[in-house]
């Protein structure tokens, strides 16, 4: 392993500072473990995000993400590099998620419970101002509340919203990963965002008169 790591760092020092994915893939195909480890480091965050966006099961995300990279390693010799490595990897991740859900005979974990007064007030603050919460803990809590609200949407719309707006995947990437037309992705995103607001307003109306009135003032 140490020898292969040296073999990888040498060409990087001599040539480009940071080898692109194609070169790392080529080295991995020739059996250089260190090259594949570098690919894992580069893509682990997005694979994690993708798996989390589909499963909504934080406890299972790491295990599935590891399985994704294991599958990629075992199949990398057959990868012809016609598509980007990331696209190929994300497709493996999506398939792995669906396999995982099918084997466990579960659906992605979604909640559709009523929101507490405090949660409604938090969302109200976000919607009515342009300033998102700054602390990571507040943002994490917002995500938890939103994932509850997303339960009202079809599964694919939930995934599109999370992957595009929270995890930062582009429309083009989502179209390739999920096998959809780019315009279909755009329309679904546009409609899904509207639906999540409708779901939010319904909860707002059921959770308190004060909030309902403030929501009503925004509703066109």
């Amino acid at each position, binding site marked *: 392993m140490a020898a292969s790591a040296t073999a990888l760092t040498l060409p990087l020092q001599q040539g480009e500072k940071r080898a692109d994915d194609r070169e790392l893939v080529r080295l991995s195909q020739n059996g250089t*473990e260190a090259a*594949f*480890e570098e690919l*894992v*480091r580069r893509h*682990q*965050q997005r694979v*994690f*995000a993708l798996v*989390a*966006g589909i499963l909504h099961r934080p406890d299972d*995300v*790491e295990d599935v*993400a*590891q399985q994704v*990279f*294991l599958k990629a*390693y*075992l199949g990398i010799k057959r990868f012809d590099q016609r598509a980007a490595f990331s696209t190929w990897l994300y497709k493996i991740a999506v398939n792995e998620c669906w396999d995982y859900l099918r084997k466990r005979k579960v659906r992605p974990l979604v909640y559709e419970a009523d929101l507490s007064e405090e949660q409604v007030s938090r*969302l109200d603050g*976000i*919607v009515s101002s*342009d300033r*998102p*919460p700054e602390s*990571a803990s507040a*943002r*994490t809590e*917002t*995500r938890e509340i*939103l994932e509850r609200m997303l339960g009202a949407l079809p599964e694919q719309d939930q995934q599109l*919203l*999370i992957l595009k*707006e*929270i*995890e*930062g995947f582009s429309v083009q990437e989502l179209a390739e990963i999920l096998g959809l037309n780019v*315009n279909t992705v*755009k*329309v679904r*995103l*546009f*409609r*899904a*965002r*509207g639906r*999540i*607001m*409708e779901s*939010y307003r319904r909860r707002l109306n059921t959770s308190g008169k004060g909030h309902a009135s403030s929501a009503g003032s*925004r509703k*066109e």
Partner: protein
Amino acid sequence: MPRDTGFGNAACEQYEVLLEDYLNGELSGADAKSVAEHWQECAGCRAALQNSVAGLRLLRASEPSADPGAGFARIVMARIRAAESERASGRANFWQPFVSFGWRFAATATLALGVLVSYNAGLGHRLQPNVATARPTDNIDIFAPEPARAPANGDEVLMMVADNSHAKF
């Protein structure tokens, strides 16, 4: 023509993709101006756009998934190595029955060969005196009484009994 969603805030179908691009700032000046003119006049598109903007605000206020950290790549590589060694032992296990059968076959063949050789050697040893005794006919006393021979069947037994009885009387 606005789409009916049952909530009264649907955009015109032909404008949905354009509104999405407009929202993300992906339209050029002229296209953006044309879309802006439309939503300002169309109540359905205006409501849908406002909803989408509010939804975007909510979603973007959420925390993305955390990076799993440097340890993750090491765990993945360890898992890959374990899987590789398992595959290698799996390949060895594939040939194991054939190897085992080969050894058993060789052992059985050796045993059979040994039995055959020892049988041949033993038979030769037993046959050799007969051949040797049968060959010299010069010393045979043809008048000597025939050595007693075990009866081969019931008739010979009766014949022997009769002979003995006859000799006594």
